[in-house]
């Protein structure tokens, strides 16, 4: 499992390329000069464009962490299942966008709407046929089942598509970049961050501030009693799983133009996402969002300050948080 973290090197290499690109295209000569004169002391020679470049990469990663861990939080709350298939479903989201484009001629914007529905429906199928049978069993069974599902789904995709990536183009409306003065902001990346933040906020709002959300929160606490009030809780659980999985599908579409579409794209990401979930507090909605974005940024900063540690910084944070707050930053100690 840990071997698969290899891909983060790819991300980092990508990040290094971005940094070089940004450094070469930065309008400020003075900055380049400064960077060139103090190459061995990056911590003191603040190369703002490289710093903001890494922060942006961090925010992008954070967007994916937040979307994925948010879905995991919803699923954990209602199903009591740690959904190890989440990374595979994220990958299916990216493939779904790829198929929609190449088999049905449905472009990015159509895929953005259809993919969460299709992947969510697949999730509902998994819940109805398999997961709901584990409802009253130990966490471990759900974990084993979803882990197995992840391996099967990834294995099938690898079998048909190999391990290399399939290209997915940035939609024409979102190509190009904005010159912010201190850095270039690629439009597509800005879009990913903004849309993720909006979706996360809307989900948080729906769960914490609406009457439907009150039902979800109550069912998380005491499903038997909510059901005894006349609510069809099993159907709510199925839909919640579909929704959480749909978020993973959405993240997959968003990722398709950034990473390539690869069978293992989710497997690499999901390990960090689980660390995010643990840091934020298992099942905490706000915790998953805040921690997701924050850890992306921390990772980005680490890449700038001390790139060698960027692979591990999330896990170091996890260890530190667990020492101080075993239930996670936003977790309710029970």
């Amino acid at each position, binding site marked *: 499992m840990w071997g698969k973290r290899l891909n983060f090197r790819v991300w980092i290499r990508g990040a290094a390329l971005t940094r070089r690109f940004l450094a070469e295209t930065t309008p400020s000569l003075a900055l380049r000069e400064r960077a060139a004169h103090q190459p061995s002391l990056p911590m003191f020679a603040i190369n703002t464009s490289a710093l903001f470049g890494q922060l942006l990469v961090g925010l992008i990663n954070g967007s994916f962490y937040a979307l994925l861990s948010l879905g995991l939080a919803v699923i954990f709350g209602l199903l009591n299942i740690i959904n190890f298939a989440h990374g595979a479903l994220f990958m299916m989201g990216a493939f779904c966008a790829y198929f929609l484009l190449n088999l049905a001629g449905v472009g990015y914007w159509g895929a953005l709407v259809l993919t969460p529905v299709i992947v969510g429906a697949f999730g509902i199928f998994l819940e109805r046929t398999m997961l709901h049978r584990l409802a009253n069993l130990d966490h471990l069974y759900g974990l084993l089942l979803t882990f197995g599902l992840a391996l099967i789904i990834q294995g099938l995709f690898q079998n048909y598509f190999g391990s290399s990536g399939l290209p997915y183009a940035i939609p024409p409306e979102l190509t190009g970049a904005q010159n912010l003065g201190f850095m270039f902001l690629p439009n597509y990346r800005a879009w990913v961050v903004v849309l993720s933040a909006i979706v996360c906020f809307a989900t948080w709002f729906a769960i914490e501030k609406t009457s439907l959300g009150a039902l979800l929160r*109550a069912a998380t606490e005491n499903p*038997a*009693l909510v059901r*005894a009030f*006349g609510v069809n809780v099993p159907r709510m659980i199925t839909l919640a799983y579909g929704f959480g999985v749909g978020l993973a599908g959405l993240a997959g579409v968003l990722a398709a133009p950034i990473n390539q579409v690869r069978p293992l794209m989710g497997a690499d990401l999901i390990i960090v996402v689980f660390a995010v979930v643990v840091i934020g507090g298992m099942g905490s909605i706000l915790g998953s969002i805040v921690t997701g974005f924050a850890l992306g940024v921390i990772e980005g900063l680490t890449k700038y300050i001390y790139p060698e540690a960027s692979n591990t910084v999330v896990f170091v944070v996890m260890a530190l948080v667990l020492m101080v707050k075993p239930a996670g930053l936003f977790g309710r100690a029970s």
Partner: protein
Amino acid sequence: MSEAALLNVKNLEAWYGESHILHGVDFSVRKGEVATLLGRNGAGKTTTLKSIMGMVAKRRGSVIYEGVETIGLSSDRIARLGIAICPEERGIFASLDVRENLLLPPKIKSGGLAIESILDLFPNLRERMSSQGTKLSGGEQQMLAIARILRTGATLLMLDEPTEGLAPVIIEQIGLTIKKLKESGFTILLVEQNFRFASTVADRYFVMEHGKIIDTFANSELSANMEKLHAYLGV
């Protein structure tokens, strides 16, 4: 079966896993009355309420509500027939504020009380509407637990030991509330250990022991049965 029976429980058996808890419970509740289940700790009173509500997975026998057999129905279906429960542990949701707790149970029929009339019954809740549910005192939590099942349109209210652990003033208030609810047409199935409290509100008593009803009498027969009752309840 009496003509006016709203709820008819016949030979009800229930299990938690392998343990057989109810061994053939028989009783009925008439429309508009306050029926009370008495019995020592562990007699099976809570299990009886939960079984009627469909919250015990393994159950057998017959529970007929308004002519509908509910023994095979899920608890959400049973609730939508018009039965509501106020559980022994109160079941106030910690992640919901008082207003959300109050508005949580969905309306299942017309005819429930309006929020205003509910708050008139429980004025203490009025100022606490935006407090977190579990920040309330025990008495307030109990009131909230009763209040939230009044607006759904349910006609049979099952209250599991609503006076447990509460101060005498609050117990008195809950007693008055139960009488008002009866006057407004609710039928109430009450579980009580506090026999003195039950005698102020009950029309009929069912005494439970070891998962069975072992005796039944009306409130008017209370004094004649006092001695027996003391023996049953060990008080």
